[in-house]
């Protein structure tokens, strides 16, 4: 049952990206949009557009009834959720199927299993995928706690079983500290949550964020290698690359094989990403969670493998078997993506919506800019600040960084403050050049370099 008419239940650059993939497959497109997005590029590019509600996302992009009604009225036979909004909402996936439509993503049950952190951890362990070492569940016996802490190795994190919001968390660097902190954490947890139960987890210091792209057709899965996204601000990725510059080949093989094993264990369908923490020093990786959707940073994988991930997910969900075997997936060169956001780096990344008065886009070899911008476009204040993603590819990482500097120099978005100056500074940084970073590297770097961003 191939898809003939695809409804895009998203907005911004990813809606544009989905429309492009659909058009190349000869699929007609329906763009649903809020009242604030009537003039968006996706609406202009799609074959049809339907207004599904007011600007507030809860009343439009998260309004399941209106989205399904729009599909019915236009005769769409499939729904692509993009990322964010309803993309990882199992009930939405179920509702789309119950309406007789194809959900371009995994089955609701796979979203349910992988979306629950405990269930995902259990599924990962069952598939033989390493997880962050810790107590499997709560421990109340102090002697048992000490034994587990010794077994996983210090430093360890002591967390409240009933916890949340960071309360009740202690980090112990040795057994002496552990014995002092354990009763404190328990008392605080009891006071805060009425339950003194604790669990413990190994602290991975200076971890890198490395993730594996997979494609599955419900029976078989393949990986498309890894991406490294260690440069983060407030847990938001700002700079992403493929492949990771630091992963030895034998570790890469094991990492990617583990992702395929877990994807096949849950009969995964579509494009998905398994996120891991990676410890440079020990070369150990630990599964943290799975994203059951296309990701913002998917283009770096497309650049090194030549596989169009959006096209493949649409074909697979339309009923075709996976078109690649694992040995047909090869990587070549190095790709980097930076997120161009409507934020002012000189003012602590304050959001800066407004009107695009002029636009000069970068081009040339190995250069791609995925965006919804056009001259005269008014960036609405109601949604996230992503304006576009600048992606470059070159033979080596060093050349890719040089190309990124060149492409950033070409990019000019008139009328808006953007994160371009941040990326220009990162692209000339020595630690970045050496890929000498981890997930907590960028925030102190931003404090130290604030004066360079304030001009």
């Amino acid at each position, binding site marked *: 049952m191939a898809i003939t008419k695809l409804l895009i239940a998203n907005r911004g650059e990813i809606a544009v990206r989905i429309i492009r993939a659909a058009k190349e497959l000869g699929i007609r497109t329906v763009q649903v949009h809020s009242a*604030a997005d009537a003039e968006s590029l996706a609406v202009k590019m799609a074959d049809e557009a339907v207004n599904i509600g007011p600007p*507030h996302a*809860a009343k439009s992009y998260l309004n399941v009834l209106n989205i399904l009604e729009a599909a019915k009225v236009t005769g769409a036979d499939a729904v692509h959720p993009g990322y964010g909004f309803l993309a990882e909402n199992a009930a939405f996936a179920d509702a789309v199927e119950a309406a007789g439509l194809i959900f371009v993503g995994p089955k609701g049950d796979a979203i349910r299993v992988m979306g629950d952190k405990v269930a995902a951890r259990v599924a990962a362990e069952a598939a033989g995928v390493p997880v962050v070492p810790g107590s499997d569940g709560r421990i109340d016996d102090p002697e048992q706690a000490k034994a587990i802490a010794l077994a996983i190795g210090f430093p360890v994190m002591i967390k409240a079983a009933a916890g949340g919001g960071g309360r009740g968390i202690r980090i112990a660097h040795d057994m002496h500290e552990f014995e002092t902190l354990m009763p404190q954490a328990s008392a605080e947890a009891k006071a805060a949550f009425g339950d003194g139960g604790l669990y413990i987890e190994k602290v991975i210091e200076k971890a890198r964020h490395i993730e594996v792209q997979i494609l599955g057709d419900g029976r078989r899965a393949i990986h498309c290698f890894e991406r490294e996204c260690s440069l983060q601000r407030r847990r938001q990725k700002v700079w992403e690359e493929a492949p990771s510059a630091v992963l030895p080949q034998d570790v890469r093989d094991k990492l990617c094989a583990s992702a395929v094993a877990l994807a096949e264990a849950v009969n995964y369908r579509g494009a998905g990403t398994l996120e891991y923490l990676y410890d440079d020093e020990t070369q150990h990786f630990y599964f943290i969670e799975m994203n059951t959707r296309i990701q913002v940073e998917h283009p770096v994988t497309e650049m090194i493998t030549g596989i169009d991930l959006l096209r493949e997910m649409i074909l697979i969900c339309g009923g075709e078997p996976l078109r690649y075997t694992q040995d047909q997936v090869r990587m070549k060169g190095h790709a980097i993506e930076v997120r161009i956001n409507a*934020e002012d780096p000189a003012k602590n990344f304050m959001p800066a*919506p407004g009107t695009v008065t002029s636009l000069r886009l970068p081009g040339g070899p190995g250069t791609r800019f995925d965006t919804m911008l056009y001259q005269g476009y008014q960036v609405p*204040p*109601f949604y996230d*600040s992503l304006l576009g993603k600048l992606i470059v590819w070159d033979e080596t990482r060093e050349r890719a960084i040089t190309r990124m500097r060149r492409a950033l120099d070409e990019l000019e978005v008139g009328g808006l403050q953007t994160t371009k100056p941040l990326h220009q500074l990162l692209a000339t940084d020595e630690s970045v050049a050496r890929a000498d970073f981890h997930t907590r590297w960028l925030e102190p770097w931003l404090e130290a370099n604030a004066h360079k961003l304030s001009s």
Partner: protein
Amino acid sequence: MAQLLSPLPGTFYRKPSPDKPSYKEDGDSVAKGDVIGLIEVMKSFNEVKAESDGKITFMAENEEPVMAGQPLAEIV
């Protein structure tokens, strides 16, 4: 009498979170500096504070999309 204008474009909220009561109700007394609402701009939340003392009457609804410079409330 003073109109309190939205400093930013975005979504206006009269409550600190959906399950909490409003910061202020129509007719409440407010003092300069009191938080009377939030403006959400691109997922970041900014407090809106009264600029004078008096009784407040709202001119924008909870969750209403607002433009920069649009009146949010009147303080008399």
